[in-house]
């Protein structure tokens, strides 16, 4: 070893020693956390998801319009540009008032800015009637984050074919598109854990029956099964019920995967000494399962679940897109994308693709987070 290398290794020695100690004595969870935090993409993704979910939770406040509000004068309006300078002078964020003109030949409506009329953006304002909502379903309010002054319209993402503000709809849609997968995932988790642990713990005929059941359900092609089940949802059902059913349908198809994993984990964990010990000492089965066995592969399950969310998001979006899931005015990202099933919509009103960006980002974010978690769950690798 050259002198230089020696020296450098010695100067860094002290701090390294602490590092080493930490590395050595940290608990598994702390190690996971540390490793996860080092995964920049995963951290970034978690941050993005956090923002998405917070936005969704406070959606009614942030969104200028409610689900059923619309403005008939501004159908298919392009996103309104937000300005700061009027005739060279800084006036803060504002929009110009808009005029609608129809082309005399094609009857195409054009929404153009009236450069004369400045409408400032106000914050924390009382919304129009129809925009009422309840904070956490409890406290009624109609305060919205922002709104343009009288006469102005602010559509950050443009409007749809009913003159509904797409920005609001994306945010309110997130309340469904981001929560169906989570609820579905939890349902899958409960089903998968319960059934998988039954099979894995008891073995014997219980295992055989459950395995057959798993095989049968897994033999169903996922997409057509979703389609078939969704087609069975009565058309007149209320959005909330459709939401619940969709969740159930999505998780009905995905539990066997988890159950299988849980089962095999159980079988391998069952043989391990600490479980044997607990068993011999007479711990009841339920306690054994919940206190000892599940925690031993919990990290794995967390990863698996995180990774399963993207397919649920895509599932919900796809079904709604096909018209088999939620329907307007109930809003989800899939419902919003229904309008883009026409090429001409993309040609003429390309802003209607904006919801796609959010589907894309959330799927990506979940994938990266899951990846980070997976790497982190295996801290010694």
């Amino acid at each position, binding site marked *: 070893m050259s002198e230089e290398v020696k020296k450098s290794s010695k100067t860094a020695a002290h701090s390294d020693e602490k590092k080493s100690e930490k590395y050595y004595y940290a608990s598994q969870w702390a190690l996971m956390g540390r490793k996860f935090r080092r995964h920049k993409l995963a951290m970034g993704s978690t941050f993005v998801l956090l923002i998405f979910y917070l936005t969704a939770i406070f959606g009614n406040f942030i969104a200028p319009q409610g689900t059923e509000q619309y403005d008939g004068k501004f159908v298919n309006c392009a996103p309104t540009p937000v300005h700061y300078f009027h005739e060279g002078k800084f006036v803060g964020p504002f929009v110009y008032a808009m005029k609608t003109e129809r082309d005399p030949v094609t009857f195409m409506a054009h929404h153009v800015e009236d450069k004369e009329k400045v409408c400032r953006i106000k914050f924390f304002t009382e919304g129009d009637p129809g925009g009422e909502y309840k904070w956490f379903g409890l406290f009624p309010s109609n305060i919205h984050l922002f709104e343009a002054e009288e006469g102005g319209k602010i559509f950050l993402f443009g409007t749809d074919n009913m003159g509904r503000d797409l920005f609001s709809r994306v945010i309110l849609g997130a309340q469904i598109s981001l929560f169906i997968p989570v609820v579905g995932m939890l349902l899958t988790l409960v089903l998968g854990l319960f059934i998988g642990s039954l099979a894995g713990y008891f073995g014997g005929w219980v295992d055989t029956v459950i395995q*057959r059941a798993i*095989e*049968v359900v*897994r*033999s*169903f*092609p*996922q*997409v*057509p*099964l979703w*389609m*078939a*089940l969704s*087609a*069975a949802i*009565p058309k007149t059902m209320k959005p909330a019920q459709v939401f619940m059913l969709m969740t159930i349908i999505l998780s009905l198809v995905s539990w066997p995967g988890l159950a299988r994993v849980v089962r095999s984990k159980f079988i391998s964990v069952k043989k391990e000494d600490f479980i044997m010990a607990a068993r011999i000492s007479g711990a009841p089965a339920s306690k054994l399962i919940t206190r000892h066995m599940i925690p031993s592969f919990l990290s794995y399950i967390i990863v698996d679940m995180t990774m399963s969310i*993207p397919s649920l998001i*895509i599932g919900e*979006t*796809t079904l709604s*897109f*096909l018209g088999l899931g939620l329907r307007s005015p109930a809003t989800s990202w899939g419902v919003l*994308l229904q309008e*883009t*099933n026409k*090429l001409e919509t*993309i*040609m003429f009103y390309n802003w209607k693709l904006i919801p*796609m960006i959010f*589907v*894309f980002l959330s*799927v*990506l974010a979940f*994938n*990266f987070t899951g990846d980070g978690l997976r790497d982190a769950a295996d801290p010694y690798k």
Partner: protein
Amino acid sequence: MTKYIIKKLLIMALTVFLISLAVFFIITLPPGDFMTNYVGRMLAAGERVNQEEIDALRRTYALDQPFIIQFWRWFSKIIFHGDFGYSFSLSMPVTAVIKAYIGPTMALSITTMLFTYIISIPVGIYSAVHQYSFGDYFFTTICFLGQAVPNFLMAILLMFIAFRLTGDTMLGLYSPKYQNAPWSWEKFLDLLKHCIIPVLVIGLNNTCGLIRTMRSQMLDELNKNYVMTGKAKGMKAAAIRYKYCVRAAVNPIASSIGWSLVNIFTGTTITAIVLNLPSMGTVMYNALINQDMYLAGSWLFLMAIATVIGTFISDVLLAWLDPRARKEYLKG
């Protein structure tokens, strides 16, 4: 060996039976029955129907019988006569419908699968061998992106891009010009051109998944002890990789062919609807919506059977490829 196969076949038979029961249950879930739609259709066509006629038809189709009897009528016909029943909406036997669509569906699925494997295996190997290189990051990113876009959106976007570039949306399998032309080299090229979008859309998702699996499998294998042995023997690193690692890493992927064909097979469903492909997807969608229960049911049933058989093929393939599994397999 025979005992094992018999056991396996019995289990398969049981699974098939349970599946068909579930399928039948699902297709009879929606309120009403086919007759309601049949009548609706006739009315839409400007015809008059009376209740007696409807009741007579209901009796003919046993729609007035309890679930289990309806099921048995359907299931026994399939098992004993290979008769899948009658498609109400298309006015022809389900077998004929399936015959008409199975060709394009299979062709598309197999093309897609070839594409999937031809792309994913080499790319996965490359990514693993050159872990953390630019290429690895590049492919990994593409894979993540590919998995993040829902199929239907990908289809629409590609369609839009095709339209912008060529002025054609590349819908269907042929250009209008070749639709009914006899087979020729040009028609074949035209077909290939129209296959690009569907194959990309259906395959990309799968390919991305497979690349990621292949990469991690390969990484696993590269860290195995026998690699060290190989090196100690004096083998070239590349030789070890290809003789040992790739062979081992490909095993689980190759044996997933049965599975993945089924996946692709059904993955065509949504894409077919968006891209207007003459595949079972569209037919299934319409059958579901029209409550054409025998058609929808038979299709679901066939898909499930395909999955069971696909799993079986995967088992066999794995046994064939991996001596350890072969032993298990022979032992039963």
